[in-house]
Each structure stands twice: as C-alpha cells, then as structure tokens.
C-alpha cells in the first residue's frame, strides 16, 4: 500500500512545510517498500510539482478545479486520491491548511490521526509516532490502531533533503461537492521574503526589555542580516507593540527553528513552551537570574541595546567574509 502526501500551494508554489511532508512521506514509503504519491491542487505550477521528485515523490496528482483552501473539498480530494493511489498512510504538514483538512480526512475514513508529529513513525510495533504535547513541554508516543493512518508533521521538525529526480504530474479529477465557504480576500502579512514564523529556521525575538515599539529597529536589523523572521513575547503583542501574529509561546505560535535568539525576554514557562523545540537558543538579558538562561544554549548577560547591534555587526562581518 502506497503513501499519500497532501501538498499545499501558495502563490503557485508548493509550500516549504509541504516539501517537508513530501520528504517525510518518502522516508515512510522507503521503509514500507512502496510508492510516495503526492496530491496537490489549484494553481500549482507544473515545474514546482515535477520538482517534488527531488524530495522523493514518485507521482503527483493535481486537481485544478479547486483553488481556494476549502477544507471540505480538499478532504474529499485527499480521500479520492487515497483510493486512486491505494494508500494506507496519509501525510500532511501540521500547518494551517493541514489543521483544517487532516481532521476531516481522519473522520471521513475513521483513520487515526497523529496531529503534530515530530518524528518518523516506528513501524516495528504497529504504527507509533512521537508527537509534541503539553505545548512543547513533553512528548507522547501515539499508536494508531486503524488500518489507514494519518500523520500531520510539525513544520521544521524533520526538515527536508533535496536529491535528484523528477515526478510525473497527472491531472486528477474527483467529485468534490459544492463549496460552502466563500473566500473574499487573502491578506498576506509577512513582508517581502520573510519566512512565516511556523516554518522559519532562524528567528529573532524580543520582549518587554526593549522598552517600546520604537526600539524594534535593532531587532529588525539583526533579523535582516541573518535572514531571520521576527517574533515577540506575549506582553509585547498584548500591549500592541508588535502584531499578534508575531507572538510565540503557549497561547501564541509554537515554533521550532534551528536558531532562536531572544532579547529582553525573561523566559516565563508559557513562553518557553512555545520555543523549547528550537535546536539552539541564544538569550540576551540584563538579568543574570532570568529563567530563560536555564533553557538557553548560549547566553549573553548584557543590555540588548548594546548587544544586538554588536551581534548584527559581527554577523555582517561573518557573512561578508563568506
């Protein structure tokens, strides 16, 4: 039985988190000794779909009749593709689209869903997947007890590898029913080339220690040099210094970048919950007793207003030296 991966599309391109899902699917398919089939939709450009071969897709099924992120239609599409591909494992990214569609597919098929997986399934004893629980404070091994399994992998949890290869792309039609939601407008908030927070590999974040929104220039400069995405702590979003979509933490966005630099954030347990999946944490704080230092790999006891510009300068030197 094959593996089926759902690939989401934004601006005609397969999203980064979906590339990770395709890579994840290819690893599971390899272990099962089967094919890794991808289903996508909308205005995905042909080249972007064929390129999925580099991430381990053998075949891509694309349905052009659905263009909006309509969970009901996409769930029907995935189920139809699952039948066509003869798949018994379905992989999503646990991004906004995955969270909208995967539960519908799970309920439609009565197939157990592990939502928020952080590792590959262990096939030795059934189908057991490690997932993040308690908002990043713990992990659970979840066993799926149904014949068909659905997994939604957290962005940036297993990464992706680009290899060689090109996937065949086939138009795929299915009865998707009527639309019950009408999309009026799509407003993209992240400016320029900044990677959205849940997918970001490098994140620079700041909190109340920055003293006011007018001081965020030093955070943005650092993020700019690094090619990082900016984030903030909850108090800063709540008082309106920064937009809500930048809030990382237990009640904001949970992230797992390779590098998280936090300046002027004390590191309350709720903030740590959202960021302790980060591979490396750098903390800058004037208070050597700040709890965040206990969760950090590297710490700088000092004033963000002095440390951040120096770090930016050091990085600029490092980048220009190549």
């Amino acid at each position, binding site marked *: 039985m094959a593996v089926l991966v759902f690939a989401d599309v934004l601006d005609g391109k397969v999203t980064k988190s979906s590339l990770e899902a395709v890579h994840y699917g290819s690893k599971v398919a390899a272990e099962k000794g089967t094919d890794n089939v991808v289903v996508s939709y909308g205005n995905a450009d042909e080249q972007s779909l064929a390129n999925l071969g580099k991430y381990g897709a053998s075949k891509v099924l694309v349905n052009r009749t659905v263009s909006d992120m309509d969970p009901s239609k996409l769930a029907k599409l995935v189920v139809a593709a699952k039948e066509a591909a003869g798949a018994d494992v379905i992989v999503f990214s646990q991004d906004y689209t995955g969270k*909208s569609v995967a539960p519908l597919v799970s309920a439609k098929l009565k197939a157990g869903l592990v939502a928020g997986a952080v590792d590959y399934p262990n096939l030795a004893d059934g189908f057991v997947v490690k997932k993040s*629980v*308690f908002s990043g404070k713990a992990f659970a*091994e979840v066993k799926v007890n149904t014949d068909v399994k659905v997994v939604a992998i957290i962005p940036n949890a297993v990464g992706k590898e680009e290899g060689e290869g090109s996937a065949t792309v086939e138009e795929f039609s299915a009865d998707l029913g009527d639309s019950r939601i009408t999309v*009026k407008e799509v407003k993209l908030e992240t400016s320029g080339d900044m990677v959205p927070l849940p997918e970001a590999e490098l994140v620079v974040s700041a909190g109340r220690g920055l003293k006011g929104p007018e001081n965020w220039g030093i955070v943005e400069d650092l993020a700019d040099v690094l090619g990082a995405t900016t984030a903030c702590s909850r108090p800063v979003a709540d008082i309106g210094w920064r937009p809500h979509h930048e809030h990382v933490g237990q009640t904001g966005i949970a992230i797992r970048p390779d590098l998280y630099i936090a300046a002027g954030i004390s590191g309350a347990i709720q903030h740590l919950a959202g960021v302790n999946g980060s591979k490396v944490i750098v903390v800058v704080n004037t208070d050597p007793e700040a709890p965040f230092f206990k969760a950090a790999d*590297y710490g700088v006891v000092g004033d963000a207003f002095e440390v951040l510009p120096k770090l930016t300068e050091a990085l600029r030197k490092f980048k220009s030296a190549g």
Partner: protein
Amino acid sequence: MKILVGISKAPDTTTKIKFTDGDTKFDEAGVQFIVNPYDEWYALVRALELKEAAGGSVTTITIGGAEADPVIRKALAVGADDAVRIDAQPTDAFFVAEQVAAYAKDKGYDIILMGKETINYNGSQVGGMVAELMDLPYVSNASKMDMDGSNATIERDIQGGIEVLEVATPFVVSAAKGMAEQRIPNMRGIMAARTKKLEVVAAVEAEALTEVTKYALPAEKGSVKLIDPENMDELVELLHKEAKVI
C-alpha cells in the same frame, strides 16, 4: 442564535509536567486545572458577545467525569447559560468528536465553537472532526468573526497572513487569539454559576482510533555557555562552528 461551545479541562499554563504509571499517565497530583484558554478566552467569550448582540443561548459541552465539573462551573461563571457533560473519559480526539456530534445532532445549533487546540494535547483535531461527522462547513483558526443574521464573515489565520471568508449557519469554527478578550468572572457570575443547569448525559458508543502508549519529557539542556557581551565575534563563531546553525 443558538451556540454550542466546546470546553475542555487543561492543566494551568504554569504547570510543571510530570508523568506516572511508568510514564503512561499525566500526573495530576497537585495540578491546578483551568478551562483550556483557547476554549475560554476566545471561543466562549466570542459566543457570549454574539448572544449579547443578537439574543439566543450559549451552552457548553465537555467530555469528562465528575472531576471536570469545577472547570465547567468556571465556564458558567464566565457567562454560559447552561452546560452539558458527556459522562466519559476523553480517550482521543475522534472519540470526543463522536460524542459532541451525537449530542449536537438534531438540536439545531447555529454555531459550534471551540478553541483551536487544547494546551495539553495540541492536536487541533476535534473541531474538524465534528464538522465532518455532522456534515457542516468548518473554519479553523478564526481570529475574528462577525455575524449578520445567519451569515458570518470570518478572518482565519493562514500561512503568512489572513483569509477573509463568508459562511452561512450552521457551521463549526475553531477560535484563535484575537477573536475576543479574556473575561474575568465577577462574584455575581460565580454565584450564579452554582445554580445553572449542568446536565450529565450518557456517552454514545464510539471508539478511539489512537492511544498514547508512553510520555516523555524533553532531554535536559546542558548548562548555558555565557559569552562576553563585548565579544560577539565569539558568539558568531560558536553558532557557526559548534552549533552549526548559521
């Protein structure tokens, strides 16, 4: 407007997580339980605001044993009219969704609202599953919802931004930050909650599709390596050569 709000019991956000029974169970000893923040701050409060604007009722639904009652009373203190508790342990998301769908079916709710996820399981599954089981439209991660008669205009979080969409009742929606502001219950609310109706309903036959076989805590971090604030070149060097993240 007849609204059903899913309320789940969650450990307080400051809880230090521990496990028991050979790491197969969450250790509840000494844990303070709260209403899952996404269910309370956003879903429940927005439901109350809609009721206050257009009339109607707000009922909460919880899957759990009698130990969930104090948390349900808290939701009543915030302002829900009445509550339903389905008398069963919430074994997995599908089991919970089956219970909610079985109860809500034939009751004519205009909106079924719940938080986008619980802070203990973080699955974001139940809303979508309920929608599918009841054949209703589903809108996830909604950060704003306005009603005009039976039509809703909703903003939902999408990758890198926001999508504005329209949907007609009945529908299922999961609430994210931004949809409403937390309400602190006042003494009158707390008193009134004691006598509000909390109906206990037997569970329907349903199966869990998944099970947690083991829990684990993240590996302990080694101690922090402190860098001289005057020597940021050293930090860059470490991030490049030792941590290999840049």
